[in-house]
């Protein structure tokens, strides 16, 4: 008699469910792997490569083909000319060959020693090429009636070229030059300091301003909905639109803000808000606060509205003043959402690129790590150095994320 036992391990139903789950997740995993994981690996690879922007196009054999001389009647003796060159001025190409079909009715008189003819297929082996090499092959031919009849010109059959060039991205040259460049002394310290300032003050500022706005709207009155919608505007509008609006508002020559300040007697001459050293950094941080306070405002307001109002009534009865109620009742209730928001916003502000790039382009002492990626890769055209900065960013983020995951699991929501 068999003993009755609960089933052990995964049964067929559970297996089917897991299979379905992986099936449903498969497209997403593939897409994310292709566009997130693969590029991340690529970034690590590139950061050890001496790659410049110009190296992205691999050297190749450029071939032009034409027919010279009269070829209108039988017996004419034109030449077919092949002009070839190496598209790169500093990379060699090895094993250059090309293949072409000679049209019917053209009889080749004399063959270049490096070429051979099989039926009507011309094969040429041009050996190894130096950087910037050029080569011209001329092949004299005679015209026969068939050529005039079929109307095919030599150019009509495109020649195939082959050649092995070493691509800087895939070959085995590695360098630590990029990192040496990135960590180079004062500049790196400044970039780090700017990033830290921007991130810390941008995050805290947006949180505090958002908290203030949430306190204002945490009561029902006519027009509360409108104001709430209005206060979300900075976040919803396209960043490029608001960034340019700010630039024009604070323009040193014809900006309204300067005109207003001068008229009110605050400053005797126009201030270059986004062009002077300490001020530009403060302005981009203020922009960050302005653009992202709606976010913390929204979260904090949602949390506030879920706090039980009985508590405040009880506190009122006990004689707690409004500030005491805020400090001893609201703040402890909001602490959870505030810390989650702080962590998330901290990471996101750290990652922010568009805002500073549009406002100052990283000039006037506002170059953060993310802007530095762009600066190195595209302004200085050194892709490798840009990738090295990206690796540094990724390292920082990994540290934040570990901390974040450890912390967030204990926190509510999100």
């Amino acid at each position, binding site marked *: 008699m068999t003993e009755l036992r609960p089933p052990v391990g995964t049964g067929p139903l559970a297996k089917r469910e897991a299979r*379905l789950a992986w099936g449903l*997740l498969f497209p997403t995993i593939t897409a994310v792997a292709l566009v997130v994981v693969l590029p991340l690996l690529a970034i690590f690879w590139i950061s050890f490569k001496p790659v410049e922007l110009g190296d992205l196009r691999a050297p190749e054999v450029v071939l032009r083909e034409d027919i010279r001389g009269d070829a209108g009647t039988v017996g004419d003796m034109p030449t077919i000319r092949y002009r070839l060159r190496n598209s790169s001025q500093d990379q060699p190409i090895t094993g250059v060959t090309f293949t072409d079909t000679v049209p019917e009715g053209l009889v080749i008189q004399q063959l270049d020693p490096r070429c051979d003819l099989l039926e009507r297929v011309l094969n040429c082996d041009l050996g190894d090429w130096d950087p910037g090499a050029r080569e011209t092959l001329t092949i004299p031919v005679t015209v026969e009636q068939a050529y005039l009849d079929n109307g095919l010109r030599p150019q009509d059959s495109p020649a195939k070229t082959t050649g092995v060039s070493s691509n800087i991205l895939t070959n085995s040259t590695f360098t630590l030059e990029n990192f040496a460049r990135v960590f180079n002394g004062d500049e790196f310290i400044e970039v780090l300091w700017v990033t830290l300032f921007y991130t810390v003050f941008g995050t805290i500022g947006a949180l505090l301003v958002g908290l203030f706005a949430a306190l204002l709207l945490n009561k029902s009155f006519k027009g509360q909905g409108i104001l709430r919608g209005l206060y979300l505007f900075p976040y919803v509008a396209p960043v490029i639109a608001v960034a340019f609006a700010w630039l024009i508002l604070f323009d040193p020559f014809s900006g309204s803000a300067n*005109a207003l300040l001068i008229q*009110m007697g605050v400053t005797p001459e126009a201030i270059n808000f986004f062009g002077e050293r300490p001020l530009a950094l403060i302005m981009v941080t203020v922009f960050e606060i302005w653009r992202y306070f709606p976010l913390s405002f929204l979260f904090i307001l949602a949390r506030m509205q879920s706090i039980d109002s009985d508590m405040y009534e009880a506190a009122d009865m006990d004689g707690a003043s409004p500030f005491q109620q805020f400090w001893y009742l609201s703040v402890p209730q909001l602490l959870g959402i505030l810390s989650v928001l702080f962590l998330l916003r901290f990471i996101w502000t750290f990652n922010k690129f568009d805002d500073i790039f549009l406002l100052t382009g990283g000039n006037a002492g506002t170059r953060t790590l993310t802007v530095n990626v762009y600066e190195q890769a595209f302004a200085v055209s050194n892709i490798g150095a840009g990738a090295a900065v990206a690796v540094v960013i990724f390292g920082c983020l990994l540290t934040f994320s570990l901390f974040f995951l450890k912390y967030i699991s204990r926190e509510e929501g999100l």
Partner: protein
Amino acid sequence: MTALRFNWITSPTLGALWMVVLSTTVAIVMSFATGDPFRPDILYSLLWGGVIGYTIGHRLGDFWGEVMGTAALSILILMGFGPLTIGAEVSLFASVFAAFALAVSFVWSAHTILDDLPHGALTRHEFEGAVIRFLTGFGYIFFTAIVLIPFYVMLMTSFKNQSELMQNPLDFSIDLSKGTELFRSYDELFTQFNFGTYLFNSFFISVLTVFITLAFAIPGAYAVARLRFRGQAAFSRSILLIYMVPMIVLALPIYIAFSMTGLRNSFWGIVMIYPVTTIPVALYMLQGYFRGLPAEIEEAGLMDGLSRLAVVWKITLPLSLPALASVSLYVFMIAWNEFLLAFMLLDDPSKFTLTRGIASLNSSEIPRQHLMAGSVIATVPIMALFLGLERFMTKGLTAGSVKG
């Protein structure tokens, strides 16, 4: 703090500070509206604000007393001894309007702030109540101003021309007699700068992004939320982690890969890459919502013989329509506002999205009102969508805007 809690200190102090806030506000509003010189006079503001604050806080006058006070304040301003200094060249109408607006708004709001203060010593409650009313008033003015001013400048600059702007940067008044000439920069953007195409491109790309994102995110979110499989917890964690990878780090290899495969500068390259930036957000928002749905309904469906996929299609999706609307709106917003990838990957003007098109307007040869008109064109659709569907949008933002 206790020393401050006497009516004879509290009401003049708050009155004086409130007058500074209001006179600055009125000066800025009038300057922006007319372009004429208005400036707050801080000393007079403190003085008159203190005096009126004291009288209101102690209820020295009845209703008619306050009317008299309002009139007196207006006259003081017009005579040049008030909290607001008005330039000599300002028209009489604007001066009277400004003086009257400041006087009325101050007396009325100071009344609200200071009204229920008793004479003599104040309790902590009463004192803080007055301070909070003051801060609330200040908060409304402050937030409304900082939010509206950049958008106001954007809109009004787009109606001006270069010489008007240089002449008086403060003058945002619109000369209605110019008629359709006002919309010249919009007209030029659509006729000469191809903005019609950009608008269409942006719209088309955003809508495609929404659909592709949903097609990937719905099955994924359902699997993470409902189905039990090994690694489920790790998976829902790692969705959050993908959020954390900054776009600029990914943009560099994507740029290289697209350059080498010829996908750069193509419509489909952008359509391929945008959804991947939004899938994690959508996945995250949707799985939260799916978890909140009662599992019993789905189980009932399963018992009645539906397959899992049929359950998702016939039960879960219809129940989560509001969430789908929020997610779609949010994804649409991200795709519509996206700038970095469009900027790096698109060079051919016929394939620009709106944001890329605006970036191309940022050159010294193109007048600034074109830049602002372009910004308005990009802002208006997303704002209209946002205001029309605010309920969904707000929900979407709270659920998903862990992302920046």
